[in-house]
């Protein structure tokens, strides 16, 4: 019997400070035992528990793509006890990763569809993974039009800036990068809140168009009516929840909402599913 609580040992291979306020860092991990990488077979939208002995575990969405080999990446916002400690760790340090956990975005269903990615703030990690995967030459033809609306408070708060620029230069993806506001004269992308930009830039809803929405509660609250207006059915709106979790495998009970466990049955849900569930997230 495999112990589902046992993390794989990993080494921190690289740490990238993503934002100007240094509250977000991306950690690139390499598995100490190469076999563990094979066991850690994941798809975009899943998460893992980052495990620091002495501090505990935190559930974090996987920011790398399964198309990237040899490492896994997580972008972590410094907020609680474990994340604060993690931010103080150094390249070369050993810790643990347990996963992959939860359901990915429904890739089988999404094949052949137009995809609109809507993200805000630091909830862009599994979306980054998704975009990276879809843009891979092996995958791009499996999807129709790709739209991305990604916003942050300010230019310096955007994640993955170099990749964003590279994607913006491509013609097989419609990138709409926006900030709430900026005085930067060199800012060449959009200004405005994500819901507003969504209203202006997102394609109209159709049976073949799916929106994947991840962001802070306030963004989601105001984006949802916009998607309604654009004609998106609630079955075609896909979201990812974050609740307090411990075990990550639907056993410890704390992320329970209705008959679902966010960790095991989610974190990905359609809006139709969420409409039937208590709003305890």
């Amino acid at each position: 019997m495999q112990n589902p609580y046992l993390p794989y040992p990993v080494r921190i291979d690289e740490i990238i400070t993503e934002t100007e306020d240094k509250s977000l860092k991306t950690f690139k991990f390499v598995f100490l035992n190469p076999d563990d990488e094979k066991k850690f077979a994941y798809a975009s939208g899943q998460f893992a528990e980052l495990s620091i002995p002495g501090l505990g575990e935190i559930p974090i969405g996987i920011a790398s793509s399964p198309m990237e080999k040899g490492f896994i990446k997580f972008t972590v916002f410094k907020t609680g006890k474990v994340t604060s400690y993690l931010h103080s760790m150094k390249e070369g340090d050993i810790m643990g990763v347990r996963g992959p956990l939860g359901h990915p975005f429904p890739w089988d269903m999404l094949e052949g569809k137009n995809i609109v990615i809507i993200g805000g703030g630091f909830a862009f990690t599994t979306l980054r993974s998704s975009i990276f995967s879809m843009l891979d030459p092996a995958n791009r033809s499996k999807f129709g039009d790709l739209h991305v609306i990604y916003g942050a408070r300010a230019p310096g708060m955007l994640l993955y800036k170099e990749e964003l620029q590279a994607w913006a230069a491509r013609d097989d993806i419609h990138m709409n990068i926006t900030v709430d506001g900026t005085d930067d004269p060199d800012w060449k992308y959009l200004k405005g809140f994500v819901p507003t930009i969504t209203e202006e830039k997102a394609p109209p809803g159709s049976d073949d168009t799916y929106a994947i929405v991840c962001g802070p509660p306030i963004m989601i609250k105001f984006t949802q009516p916009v998607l309604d207006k654009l004609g998106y059915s609630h079955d075609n709106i896909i979201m990812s929840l974050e609740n307090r979790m411990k075990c990550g495998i639907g056993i410890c009970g704390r992320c329970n909402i209705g008959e679902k466990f966010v960790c095991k049955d989610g974190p990905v849900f359609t809006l139709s599913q969420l409409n039937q569930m208590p709003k305890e997230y």
Partner: protein
Amino acid sequence: MTLIKINKKALDLGIEKAKSAYQVFGPVKQKNDHDYKRLDKNELPDFNFQNTRLSPKSIIYPQSQIMFRYSLDETSDDCRIMKEVENVSAPMAIVGVRPCDALSFPIVRRNFDSPEYQDTYWVKAYEATTFVGLACNSACSTCFCTSAGTGPFGEEGLDVLLVADGDDFYVKPLTEKGTAFVGAAGWSGTADASAGEKIEALKQAAETSVTSAVKTDKLREKTTLELYDAPFWQEEAFSCINCGTCTYVCPTCWCFDVQDETFGKSGIRMRNWDSCMFPLFTSHASGHNPRDAKYQRVRQRFMHKLKYYVDKYDNGIQCVGCGRCIRLCPVNIDIRRICNKMNSFDAESCKCETAAS
């Protein structure tokens, strides 16, 4: 399997004998109440109890349990790598389990032993354990097992059922594990032909002694949100002080927390029972808490047991009718009252029957 009849002396001798093959646990009176404990040599269970104060769940699922050990010694090769701890696999037997508590194990198993994940700690302990039940000849006023999926002579979750008849006991092995335990105890002596009737009569009398009940027949047909948004939660939760008593004494409450504790350069990752009554249970690192208010947490406990579980597993309620939470709740929140409210709630008229049973 054959029904065996033994006297009290043979029962005691057998339990003592079984200790050579099993770690035997049983109810023992400590101060004013009975609780389960590991029986030492020559220590016998005390069957003069209605039910124990705490359920036997902690034998399989201790309140605090070490999961891993780790070293923070930078000179060690294993520094910061979690190491599994030796897991129980020695045979255990719990003697004198009441049928209500016995049913709690198959219920809890649905959580700990799912098709996708096996909680190795729970599953190993469960599989290593033989459950030797003791039928209830009379119920407490707070017992409602007969409407919670079992009864005073219920067999689900048991490997052996003992039925007390005066100074004698009928021994009914129910599973292979049970037969093995009966063998280890050396219990033998076929009961006479009338034993079946005798047991049936005791069972009938015991079932009649269960005087309270819950109604659960309509829980499934209501939508989650209908019950969730029902108007009675604030009122029903008013007296609650959000302690963890109900969840800790409940045989079917399974939630836990995981904690690391470091001592010098080494430490343990452990789990401890947790409770949905505690605000911290769901509090995000950001400070946001999806169940911030007391009534939301009270609602969660009852919705989980009486609606979410019911819908998820289609196998009755997550409650065995042992009545512990009723007897021990410091402020008299009575699951029977809440269950009947939920079951009778009519979303259109916004009304429900209020009588506690």
